[in-house]
């Protein structure tokens, strides 16, 4: 009898791990996948184009329909795992049944943060995480005219852009002094902001959201505080999108007594403290870090698949966070650590009239980080140089111009 592998979660990390596993050792496991959402794994990154009306939701699927069956996988969709019995090695699911496992893979992902403020539970307040959220926003945009997005991170900006494209008047409230502060420095953020402002999105930076006011059970306004002037601001709205961050979803792991620390703690083989249980994706805590970008998830998936397949020779040493994407049509690349620090040197390029800004950060002859906006040529090579900690002294003058 084949060893049984149960996968909890059917997001991008799970899907990618399965792909690798099939590639390395097809037919090695009897695989069951438990997914909370009603449809097979889809590409969450493409939700924004769907929101903006640039892509049909049918185009989101990560695999063609027959792939899972062809590889002998059982999909349990619209189903939640509620508990793990590590002694009996079973997973309880919400239809009351128990699934036995020889290996368990946790890929529970993360949950969007819902701000603990008055009115957060009003009708018309949504988070932005999955297809259902996306469809809800699309529906709201058909009936209503105004939206407020709380959070000027990547997700918030994509939500704002999507809703604006669908014709809503959009305000973005952001607590920090510039947008996407995790991925961008101030100058880069200013370019992104300028491009979005040119499309009619209004920004309220360094504003703290205090409360959401409702009328007849539905959201009516957002109250915020301008931190600079300490003056209150009220923005009338019909829809509030909370995009104020995510939190690894560790509820199942914690209830099973697995070691968690703001994420399911794993070692370099993606194994949890229980040697039969592995974890990948946004739910993970590895060497003290959790990741919310797709590239690290893919790297984890690759390592994890080799160990599940029993040919484990790869180790995950952590990712240099790097993102290379289009924020609402603006190319953005962000990699590594680009904070100013003693001994660090900046190499900067600009084409201000074209909205291009690029900064590379060097430390002791190595490239440690970079932020690009508007033009991300060379991003892949640079991300690799950052990851590999290559000494770049000899090629310093070419770095900015790599193709």
């Amino acid at each position: 009898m084949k060893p049984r592998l149960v996968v909890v979660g059917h997001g991008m990390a799970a899907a990618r791990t399965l792909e690798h596993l099939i590639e390395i050792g097809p037919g090695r496991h009897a695989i069951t996948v438990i997914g909370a959402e009603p449809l097979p794994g889809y590409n969450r990154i493409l939700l924004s184009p769907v929101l903006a009306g640039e892509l049909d939701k049918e185009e989101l699927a990560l695999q063609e329909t027959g792939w899972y069956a062809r590889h002998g996988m059982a999909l349990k969709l619209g189903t939640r795992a509620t508990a793990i019995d590590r002694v009996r090695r079973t997973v309880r699911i919400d239809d009351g049944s128990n699934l036995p496992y020889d290996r368990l893979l946790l890929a529970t992902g993360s949950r969007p943060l819902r701000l603990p403020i008055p009115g957060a539970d009003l009708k018309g307040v949504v988070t932005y995480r999955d297809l259902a959220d996306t469809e809800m926003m699309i529906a709201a945009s058909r009936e209503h005219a105004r939206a407020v997005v709380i959070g000027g991170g990547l997700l918030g900006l994509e939500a704002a852009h999507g809703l604006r494209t669908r014709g809503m008047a959009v305000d973005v409230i952001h607590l920090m002094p510039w947008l996407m502060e995790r991925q961008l420095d101030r100058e880069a953020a200013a370019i992104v902001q300028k491009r979005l402002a040119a499309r009619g999105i209004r920004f309220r930076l360094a504003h703290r959201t205090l409360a959401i006011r409702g009328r007849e059970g539905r959201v009516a306004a957002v109250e915020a505080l301008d931190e600079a002037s300490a003056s209150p601001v009220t923005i009338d709205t019909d829809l509030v999108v909370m995009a104020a961050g995510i939190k690894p979803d560790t509820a199942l792991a914690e209830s099973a007594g697995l070691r968690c620390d703001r994420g399911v703690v794993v070692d370099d083989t993606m194994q949890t403290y229980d040697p039969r249980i592995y974890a990948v994706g946004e739910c993970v805590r590895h060497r003290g870090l959790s990741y919310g970008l797709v590239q690290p998830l893919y790297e984890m998936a690759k390592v994890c698949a080799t160990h599940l397949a029993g040919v484990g020779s790869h180790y995950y040493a952590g990712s240099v966070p790097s993102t290379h994407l289009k924020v609402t049509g603006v190319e953005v690349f962000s990699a590594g650590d680009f904070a100013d620090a003693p001994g660090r040197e900046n190499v900067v390029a600009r084409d201000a009239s074209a909205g291009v800004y690029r900064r590379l950060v060097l430390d002791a002859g190595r490239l440690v980080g970079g932020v690009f906006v508007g033009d991300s040529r060379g991003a892949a090579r640079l991300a690799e140089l950052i990851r590999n900690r290559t000494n770049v002294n000899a090629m310093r003058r070419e770095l900015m111009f790599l193709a």
Partner: protein
Amino acid sequence: VRGGTTGEVRSTCPYCGVGCGVRIAHAAGRIIGVTGDDDHPANFGRLCSKGMALPMTLSRSTRLTVPELRAARDQPRRSVSWDDALDHVAERFAATILRHGPDSVAFYISGQLLTEDYYAFNKLAKGLVGTNNVDTNSRLCMSSAVAGYKSTLGADAPPACYDDLDHADCVFIAGANMAFAHPVLYRRLEDARKRRPGVKVIVADPRRTDTAAEADLHLALAPGSDVALFNAMLHVMLAEGRVDRGYIARCTDGFEALEREVAGCTPAWAASVCELDSDDIVNAARMFASSPATLSLYCQGLNQSASGTAKNAALINLHLATAQIGRPGSGPFSLTGQPNAMGGREVGGMANLLSAHRDLADPQHRAEVARLWGVASVPEKSGLTAVELFDALAGGTVKCVWIACTNPAQSMPDQALVRAALQRAELVVVQDCWRDIETAAFADVLLPASTWGEKEGTVTNSERRISRVRAAIVPPGEARADWAIATDFARRLGPRLGRDDAGRLFAWTCAEAIFDEHRETTRGRDLDITGLSYARLDADGPQQWPFPKGAQEGKARLYGDGLFPTASGRARFVATPFVETAEAPDKMHPLRLNTGRLRDQWHGMSRTGRAATLHRHEPEPQVAMHARDMAARDIEDGALVRVSNSRGAMILRARCSGELREGDVFIPMHWGGRWVTGTGVNALTLRAIDPQSFQPELKHAAVQIETARLPHTLVAMGVLADADLALEALAVLLGRFDYASCGLAGRDYPVTILRAASAAPLAADLLAEVDAVFGLQPVRATLAYEDAGAGISRVGRRLGQRLAAVRLVGDTTGAAWLADWIADARPAASLGFAILAPSSEAPGGAVARGKILCTCYDVAESQAQAAFAGGLALEQVRSALKCGTGCGSCVPALRRLEASARAIAA
């Protein structure tokens, strides 16, 4: 102004002494085109690259348009009325003259003034002030030629004419690079050689110039050894019986002394002095003496020397000894460097001359001039010549100086002393059309003069031909003709000196009135032009002198009758012993510095420097060196070097050149303080002067050269709203870099360029000032590549699709192709910031075009090279690329490229 608002007037080119005729097309008060005048006998329609570019030199941004005055040295000059300016100067001159005597003031004028201007200044000094302290920049140019002619032939008159180029069987070119300095005459020589392939050309020049490279025999003699060569040639002629004893006996004096002098000048001796092959010397002597007609052409290589008169005389000796004079195709023909050095001397506008070639030292001549002018006397004491004049200013004996139409703070030797002299002077008056010339910085009073295209008068070219100069447009602002300024001043000065005759002496109201007065002074003199008038010149075109009353035409060539304008009627041989250069190389300064001309620049670049196209042949100041001299000093090709001696130093780029002898180096004379850090090559030259001509030895100084380690580099360039204003702003920044030079590139849109390097990191405030000139202030420099840790900052600005300006600091790689990119207005927007990549290759792989050989058709040397390498012959390359089919100035260089391509192929 002639021709109304639109039309064409005939005039002459304002550059060299060939004196080409031009047709100036004008419309709505502006000059819109210049073409060669087909009817002018100096050029028959041809122009050189400099003449062709005249329309591009007419910016008025830095013209002087109103008088400016400062009451004290520490104050800025302010604009004043002509009355205020001239009254102020008249007060100061009068007070100084009354207190310290007339010799405490001086006038330093120019071979670019018209004959009428010259006449007015000369009369002002000698007839009103009572001083002979009026000298000109032709002292730096033709004085030795004049002294040479006078001491041998008896008069300051070139005996030959341009037509002789068509008749000469042997052309002996000494110390002249005609291909660069007198291109239109060189075209004529090319034509003559093509028509008559037997014509032999000998060139005596330390450098293998384009002219020398095309000679049948190039004598690459040691600098300053010309007299030894000429004496040895005479020795050979004597030994082989090639002299014309009959002519010598009939028409000359003094041959015995010369024979004794050259008896020891054997070819072997000269070979060692001149560092030549003695067979070459013998061959040169034979070719010279045995050809049916030998024509010598010579210029600054003979003149700008402490033994310049002897060099001229020694060459003329050869002509007299072989009777190679007075016949078509023969004679010693001095090529004049300025458009009207000849006319200036005709009116006596030098410190040791009087009107119409009269001598100051001759009491009879002085009396004649006093009678002609209607004054009691003219001063007897010889005036101060150029170098002496600035010495006297530095010493304080001359207190007021009036400088007109020349730029001594660029052109005089030993700039440190010249500048100290201008600072020491109590009053410096500068009369010029430009406010941005180097000398203007020293002016207490600036007087705005009209210039080429705006002036009426006459000039005399190298072949004694007088042409009318005509105005096409009115001058800007309150600028006035030079003669009119001198005249107005004279009328104001006279009463202040207690003279009541200034109104009568300076009654002229037009240039023609001055010409008529000058004409009268020539009556009966060697240059008698009593048969000429403006009307005649207008009707019959340019005429050679002499042209006495009743003559139907001027005299093409002189002395055909064997009679010379000396007391005896015979020419005089001058025994000319060879003397070394004034400054011998020594251990500390082992290299011999030669200075000279580029093809596409003229003088101190105050006019040619404004035409972008004229910068493209030689874009950056450089010193040419022999490969072994560079290797011995570990100097890389293109490296910045410091050229120095006890007088000063200059930093510029070193270029390895196959044109130079080992031990010799060459720096073009053109770049002064406006164009390069320091004062230009004249920081290094010396004040040693020829004892007879008083001409300084500008073409030889001993120097040392070492690499200048200036790691902090900058290049800035851009198409700016006004290139002249930008260059003016940059000129004051040059001194803040250890090395900096500015210039132009491009054609239709001039690209202003600054190149700089310093030993210490460049200060932020200096960078900010540079950026401001190029419109690259932080808000405007939208393109940037900055690597502070590596000291690199490259910023740029686009205008629409094209790149408008860039400034590169720390790493200036790619500056050359960026200049092309900007100049050619290539699209840059799609390249974004990547256009600032420090790459020696342009995006798409293009490399910089480099030196532009053909300015008429914009053909780079590299293009021509490639065409020749592909096996094309000269005529094929000319028809394929069109290079050399315009003005023809690049044809010698094309022939050289063809020859070297053939050599490689073989």
